[in-house]
């Protein structure tokens, strides 16, 4: 028994750490799903776009990928604001399909734009962090980059949760998601509020993109892979809860790594989706959904 546990220590810790990254990939999508009732099919592409933004920044100024966040986050926020304010806001109140199509269109445009500019070559955001490990005791060597991912995810969740619970803007976003019409009667311009929510969502995609770029390789067409992960995280965690989304990420990451450990690396993705199916069967609203 003890030997099994010590054998599982590595995959469990790695799974949790990877899960942190998954959580931050999913959190922006969960937010927009909960607030604007919009399924942002371009979220994965936002993530990859941010990876490329970081790549370009690094080629212009020789700094660590993490420091490029200072430029990448505002750039992605601005893009998110513009897309929501000028495109998606026009489809408000017209049903589910128009915004879905627009998001899908943005996804295709982004992928092909990246392909055109950067060619289909594999890229990665090189940094010394990517190859280092942190020894814990004598038996586990944690990949430093996974630890960085996890810490960044926790900081992001804590920051968002503070924003939504403590600031006027955050509360106004929650109010608009509860009742758009009543929020307008309070003097809240809900269209601007939605654009700000999308800006924040794209900002989390920026963080996810830089972390993904440091952890894995990426191509112009990698976006949909992360969209699927974000979907999984949102479904497991449930809508409308930041912590739920984060925990959903941990569960998905854990399921993948443990599946790979027991069944072989080929089963990594499958075992994640098996958990997804099980959750959807027994609690379709997600494990941590409110109400």
């Amino acid at each position: 028994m003890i030997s099994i546990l010590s054998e599982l220590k590595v995959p469990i810790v790695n799974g949790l750490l990877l899960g942190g990254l998954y959580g931050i990939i999913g959190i922006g999508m969960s937010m927009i799903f909960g607030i604007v009732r919009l399924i942002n099919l371009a979220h994965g592409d936002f993530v990859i776009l941010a990876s490329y933004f970081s790549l370009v920044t690094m080629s212009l100024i020789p700094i660590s990928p993490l420091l490029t966040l200072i430029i990448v986050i505002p750039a992605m926020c601005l893009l998110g604001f513009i897309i929501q304010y000028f495109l998606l806001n026009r489809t408000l109140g017209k049903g589910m399909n128009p915004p879905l199509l627009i998001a899908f269109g943005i996804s295709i445009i982004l992928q092909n734009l990246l392909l055109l500019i950067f060619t289909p070559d594999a890229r990665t955001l090189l940094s010394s962090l990517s190859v280092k490990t942190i020894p814990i005791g004598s038996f586990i060597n944690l990949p430093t980059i996974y630890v960085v991912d996890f810490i960044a995810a926790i900081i992001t969740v804590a920051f968002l949760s503070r924003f939504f619970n403590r600031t006027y803007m955050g509360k106004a976003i929650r109010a608009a998601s509860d009742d758009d019409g009543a929020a307008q009667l309070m003097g809240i311009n809900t269209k601007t509020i939605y654009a700000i929510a999308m800006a924040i969502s794209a900002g989390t995609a920026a963080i996810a993109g830089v972390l993904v770029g440091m952890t894995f390789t990426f191509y112009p067409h990698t976006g949909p892979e992360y969209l699927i992960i974000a979907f999984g995280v949102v479904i497991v965690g449930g809508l409308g809860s930041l912590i739920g989304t984060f925990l959903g990420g941990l569960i998905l990451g854990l399921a993948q790594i443990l599946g790979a450990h027991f069944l072989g690396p080929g089963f990594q993705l499958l075992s994640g989706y098996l958990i997804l199916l099980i959750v959807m069967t027994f609690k379709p609203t997600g494990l941590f959904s409110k109400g």
Partner: protein
Amino acid sequence: MTDSLLQVQNIDVFYHDFHALWGVSIDVEKAQVVSIIGANGAGKSTLLNTIAGVYCPSNGTIEFCGKKINGLTPYQAVAEGISLVPEGRRVFPRLTVLENLEMGSYLPKARKKKDEILKKVYELFPILSERKNQLASTLSGGEQQMLAIGRALMSEPKLILFDEISLGLAPLVIKHIYQRVKQINMEGITVLLVEQDIQRSLKAAHKVYIMQSGRIKLSGKPGELSPEDIRKAYFGI
């Protein structure tokens, strides 16, 4: 004329193809309580919502404090000093009571005076202070109505519009809420309310308008209208 706060002149309102209001005119004087009565579907709520900027009139003008305000969005109307307590209360269920009230003072002008207004609202409805950290969805119907009123007061309105505030509430609660409405009015806030309960309206108001099928049928001071005329205007027979 000099005391007029709100003047609605000859407005027509359409929902898509449906002609909801036909040349409606009302005049609300400062610091008064004016009530609009009428049966279901008479257009009372439409009129209030149009004043609050939810609907845009296709004809006619709405003047508030001498300024033309038709065509404003709801959030712009709030900035002008018009606050609507919507039908069905519409509190934010997943926000706490305090957060709901804070949303009422979202606009920068009101936000600066938030603590001061909040104190007044708590004096008016002490129950809200007791429950400030509860989610609004856990309140009873009457408490939610008090919250909706408190929330509307948080923007420091000059004119407050009440849309069927007695709907679905117990008689005792209704009485309590109407006492508060009177108190709000005595603070100098002009009140325009829509009500199906004729007796209650006549008692509370300085002036009443009776609507039927999207038109104003009768108006006057409650004491000057005969029950016979009111019945005719209300039912159209």
